[in-house]
């Protein structure tokens, strides 16, 4: 573990979703406490008070002894890694989680039945023993498979970690020393400079142009100035606190450590994140529901036939063995593997499209998502200040803000632009880092302030500076060797110093008209949420300032007013190119996109408008008020579809008000939110009553229904997002720019940081949900032809038509590839045009699916199998009339002269060969009817002719299952190994009519379903 590194602590990577360990012992109260705002008060104290509080000295720092004492008291300055799940627990979870339980119960029942048989019979049949062993083997193998799958993605997670230990420069006993950041204690005097990572929460006592990048904590893209004065009551807003694990971008600062380790703001967020409990994934809930249904059916069948067999006169023990046999026969042995493989395939496909899924089950979650809460900085935007607009020659020019410079550029021919570019170049301390000549300018790394970097990337020019005077934090001027005085800064202050303005390269006096034009441009650009800078210059008269003039920057000995105003440049962190499109797609897929950001409301709103989170024409309450010129309080909030909510307002909202906002506004932006508030917002969204069309493909049928518990996805990259990421049903973190903490808390990682990949995730999630339905329908169908032989064996005493081994050959052999191939099926309709699934109504497996699989198609399949069975029996001389009731004699080893319908006598061994040939034929018949089944399962609504046979894997599956059946039947030695015998070619064709019948039956069903939307057929059979 990377101790000493601020954020390299680790959350157990996989499967944490349903974990219930740590929070319980910490207690809910503690967690609630963490949800509250930061308790730091040091920013309001004077430096002396802070020193007194921590027994430190402002010059000398702590004594070494004191530091050691504090270190022993508070522990090292590192985040405690949250309890990680041991590997064996993860493995066990794979072995005993969800679906596996069903198979384990089946296996135990098998062993139980075998034990009963062994105790009561002399020569017990080994079937139950084998079945038990196979079931256990299936669970163990599948468990290992999914364990290794997830281990693989956790390994990718590990690779994200940066293990470099952090150093800190502290002053103790008056000496500067470089120590491991872990050793820093509260009260230490720490010095930071540009490029450093802040080693702990600091109360700044002195600074020189210090700026920190708080974007991972607050979401502000711009570096924030740090200075010793308290500027705000909120510790997160005030300038005199620098936070643990944020970066110092430029300048130097000295501060007293006020919090270390888990007590820092970051530490609290991290503890909050790891302490959060999250529910089951939607797919896990669906599988649970499915298990309930399957168990219900199994127990119902088992008990019914248990009672029937008792009535028919079987002994108690025999009846119990039948009961167990029937229950076990209902367990779909192959389904666990099928579901796992289907999910893995989707996860792989998503990984190829740059969505790394940490937990297999999370593959589907995005598909069910009805709300996406997205962070702004770094997720929707590029997290890179870029010049977006310029105002010169009394005209606003638009710069190209796209990531790849593909956008249109403005007219650069004006001489004013040349001047403007020169000023921007001169008033600039940012430089390109070396060795990047081959890269496009926008891609190059820059050392320096974000806004200056933006300017640097916008213009490409170099001149030599003579003197540079930091005038104050926002306003500075520099001169070059032609003695051109250039200045940039806050526009209104620049304007104050100007008496002329440059138009088309010529100086003109600044009149009121010009001033108003300037004001309008300034307001317009500011209203776009952009950071506006003004630029001006002055050609220094040569007589006054001859060559070699000694400019004194401390005692300004030259002219700094009556300058010439050149223009404005405004910067913004522009949205990523693919985002507006992706937001639009989410919209049309019925997903509500909410922006939750730590940044300022104006910027947030501008970006929201830019990416379509607030769509064109939709107004907020404030907009309406401004348009109608009435106070905000008079506007009916219901009139406004969009709303922008400030974090401070959010604090005062009750839960009901919050729900009201989320319900009544479709387009919401939360600005200035703290990490804790982000969490509350996510919880609010999850509480949402979700109105949706229950069955959107058929609007007539459903009307409006509602359900509780929307499924919420959160995207984010910063530490401040991580509690929300963890709490969300699916947290999506950014792979390149995202912080380690956020990656650990998330379930999915976008490796290319492209928000558009979320759309891929939604698409794949919805597709796999549909396809899993198909796979399950296909797999369950063959359960009926597998159970009915046993039922008839009990009820009408015929020789057993299908044995345990052959059942296993179907479930774990021939059915596997076709079932998996359904995961490759293309979507039937445009899945991105429909509403998200309603978790209450649209189940993975519902009664209708069971009714189709068991009640309709399964029954036809059973008929086909029995037909083959009776044909072979009859061809050998046993007509159906003799077969009924023959069982006791048939299975009696001592009867070696059993007569068939024609009076031929059969020995025990001969009879068994015929019986096992029948098993083989029944098996082959099931394969034949499953051909038709897999083809009808390709679609749920469309005809196969509409869908086509483009799924190559499915065709391969058809070939493969047939080949496997032929191989099992014809391979020499199979009669000994599996008791399967070669079939005459004609016997293969017994089930063909039934196969055809299934196809026609289902095509007709789907035809009626399509023709008659909302009709009885749809209500009863559309799964």
């Amino acid at each position, binding site marked *: 573990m990377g101790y000493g590194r601020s954020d390299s602590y680790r959350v157990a990577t996989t499967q944490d979703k349903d974990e219930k360990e740590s929070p319980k012992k910490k207690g809910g109260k503690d967690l609630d406490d963490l949800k509250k705002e930061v308790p730091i008060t040091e920013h309001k104290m004077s430096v002396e008070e802070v020193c007194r509080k921590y027994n430190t000295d402002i010059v000398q720092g702590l004594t070494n002894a004191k530091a050691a004492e504090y270190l022993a008291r508070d522990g090292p300055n590192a985040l405690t890694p949250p309890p990680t799940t041991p590997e064996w627990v993860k493995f066990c979870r794979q072995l005993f989680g969800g679906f596996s339980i069903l198979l384990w119960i089946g296996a135990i029942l098998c062993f139980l039945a075998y034990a009963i048989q062994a105790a009561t019979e002399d020569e017990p049949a080994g079937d139950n023993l084998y079945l038990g062993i196979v079931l256990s083997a299936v669970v163990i193998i599948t468990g290992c498979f999914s364990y290794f799958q997830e281990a693989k993605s956790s390994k990718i997670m590990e690779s994200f970690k940066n293990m470099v230990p952090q150093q800190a420069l502290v002053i103790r006993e008056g000496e500067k020393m470089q120590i491991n950041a872990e050793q820093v204690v509260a009260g230490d005097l720490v010095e930071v400079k540009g490029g450093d990572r802040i080693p702990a929460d600091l109360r700044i006592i002195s600074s020189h142009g210090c700026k920190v990048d708080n974007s991972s904590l607050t979401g502000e893209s711009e570096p924030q100035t740090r200075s010793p004065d308290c500027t705000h009551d909120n510790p997160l807003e005030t300038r005199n606190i620098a936070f643990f694990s944020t970066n110092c971008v430029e300048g130097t600062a000295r501060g007293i450590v006020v919090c270390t380790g888990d007590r820092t703001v970051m530490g609290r967020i991290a503890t909050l994140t790891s302490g959060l409990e999250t529910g089951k994934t939607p797919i896990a809930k669906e599988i649970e529901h499915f298990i309930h249904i399957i168990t219900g059916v199994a127990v119902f069948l088992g008990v019914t036939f248990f009672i029937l067999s008792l009535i028919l006169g079987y002994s108690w023990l025999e009846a119990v063995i039948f009961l167990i046999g029937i229950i076990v026969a209902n367990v779909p042995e192959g389904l666990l593997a099928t579901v796992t493989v289907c999910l893995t395939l989707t996860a792989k496909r998503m990984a190829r499209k740059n969505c790394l899924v940490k937990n297999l089950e999370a593959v589907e979650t995005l598909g069910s998502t009805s709300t996406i809460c997205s962070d702004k900085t770094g997720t929707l935007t590029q997290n890179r200040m870029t010049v977006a607009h310029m105002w010169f020659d009394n005209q606003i020019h638009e710069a190209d803000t796209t990531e790849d410079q593909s956008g249109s550029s403005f007219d650069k021919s004006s001489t004013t632009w040349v001047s403007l570019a020169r000023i921007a170049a001169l008033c600039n301390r940012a430089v390109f880092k070396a060795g990047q000549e081959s890269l496009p300018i926008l891609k190059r790394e820059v050392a320096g302030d974000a806004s200056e970097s933006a300017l640097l990337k916008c213009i490409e020019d170099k001149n030599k500076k003579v003197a540079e005077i930091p005038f104050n934090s926002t306003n500075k001027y520099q001169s070059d060797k032609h003695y051109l005085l250039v200045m940039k800064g806050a526009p209104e202050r620049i304007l104050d110093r100007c008496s002329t303005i440059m138009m088309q390269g010529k100086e003109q006096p600044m009149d009121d008209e010009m001033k108003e034009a300037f004001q309008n441009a300034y307001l317009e650009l500011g209203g776009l949420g952009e950071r506006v800078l003004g630029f001006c210059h002055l050609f220094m008269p040569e007589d006054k300032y001859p060559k070699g003039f000694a400019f004194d920057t401390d005692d300004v000995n030259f002219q700094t007013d009556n300058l010439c105003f050149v223009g404005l440049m405004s910067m913004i962190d522009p949205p990523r190119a693919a985002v507006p499109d992706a937001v639009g797609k989410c919209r049309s897929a019925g997903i509500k996109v909410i922006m939750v950001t730590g940044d300022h409301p104006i910027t947030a709103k501008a970006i929201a408008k830019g990416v379509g989170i607030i769509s064109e024409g939709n107004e907020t309450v404030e907009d309406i008020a401004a348009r109608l010129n009435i106070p905000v309080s008079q506007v009916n909030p219901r009139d406004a579809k969009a709303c922008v909510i400030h974090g401070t307002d959010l604090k005062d909202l009750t839960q009901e008000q919050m729900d009201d906002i989320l319900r009544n506004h479709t387009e919401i932006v939360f600005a200035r939110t703290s990490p804790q508030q982000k969490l509350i917002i996510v919880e609010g969204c999850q509480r949402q009553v979700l109105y949706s069309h229950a069955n959107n493909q058929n609007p007539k049928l459903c009307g409006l229904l509602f359900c509780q518990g929307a499924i919420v996805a959160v995207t984010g990259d910063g530490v401040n997002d991580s509690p929300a990421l963890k709490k969300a049903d699916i947290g999506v973190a950014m792979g390149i720019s995202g912080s380690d903490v956020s990656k650990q808390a998330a379930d999915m990682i976008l490796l290319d940081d492209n928000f558009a990949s979320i759309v891929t995730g939604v698409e794949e999630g919805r597709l796999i949900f549909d396809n899993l339905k198909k796979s399950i329908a296909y797999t369950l169908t063959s359960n009926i032809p597998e159970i009915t032989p046993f039922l008839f064996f009990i009820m009408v005493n015929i020789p057993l038509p299908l044995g345990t081994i052959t059942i296993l050959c179907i479930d774990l052999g021939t059915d596997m590839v076709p079932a998996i*191939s359904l995961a*490759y*099926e*293309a979507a039937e309709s445009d899945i991105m045009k429909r509403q998200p699934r309603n978790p209450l109504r649209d189940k993975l497996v519902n009664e209708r699916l069971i009714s189709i699989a068991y009640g309709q198609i399964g029954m036809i399949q059973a008929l086909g199998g029995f037909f083959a069975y009776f044909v072979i029996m009859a061809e050998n001389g046993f007509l159906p009339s003799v077969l009924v009731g023959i069982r006791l004699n048939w299975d009696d080893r001592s009867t070696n002269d059993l007569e068939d319908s024609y009076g031929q006598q059969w020995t025990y061994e001969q009879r068994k060969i015929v019986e096992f040939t029948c098993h083989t034929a029944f098996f082959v018949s099931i394969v034949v009817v499953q051909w038709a089944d897999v083809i009808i399962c390709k679609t749920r609504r469309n005809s196969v002719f509409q869908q086509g046979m*483009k*799924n*190559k*894997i*499915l*065709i*391969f*599956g*058809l*070939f*493969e299952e*047939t*080949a*496997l059946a*032929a*191989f099992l*039947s*014809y*391979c*020499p030695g199979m009669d000994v190994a599996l008791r399967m015998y*070669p*079939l*005459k*070619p004609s016997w293969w064709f017994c089930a063909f009519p039934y196969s055809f019948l299934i196809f026609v039956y289902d095509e007709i069903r789907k035809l009626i379903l399509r023709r008659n939307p909302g009709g009885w057929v749809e209500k009863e059979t559309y799964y």
Partner: protein
Amino acid sequence: MGHLTLVAVMAALFTLFVETEANPFVYNYERLRIGGLVFACLLIVGGISILLYNRCSRRNKKAEDDNSEI
């Protein structure tokens, strides 16, 4: 050419099976087994060739996103 091979294979299989059915009392299980196994092999070859054909044609023209790609 392809059709010709197909017809030839079918004919060979057919004769194999017809011969096995020739005598109703002595069933030639050996022939049946061989026929069945040949049939199985052909199916496997067919199945795999479908998968591979898919692959090759994809490589030739980077066509639309095929969902059934492995």
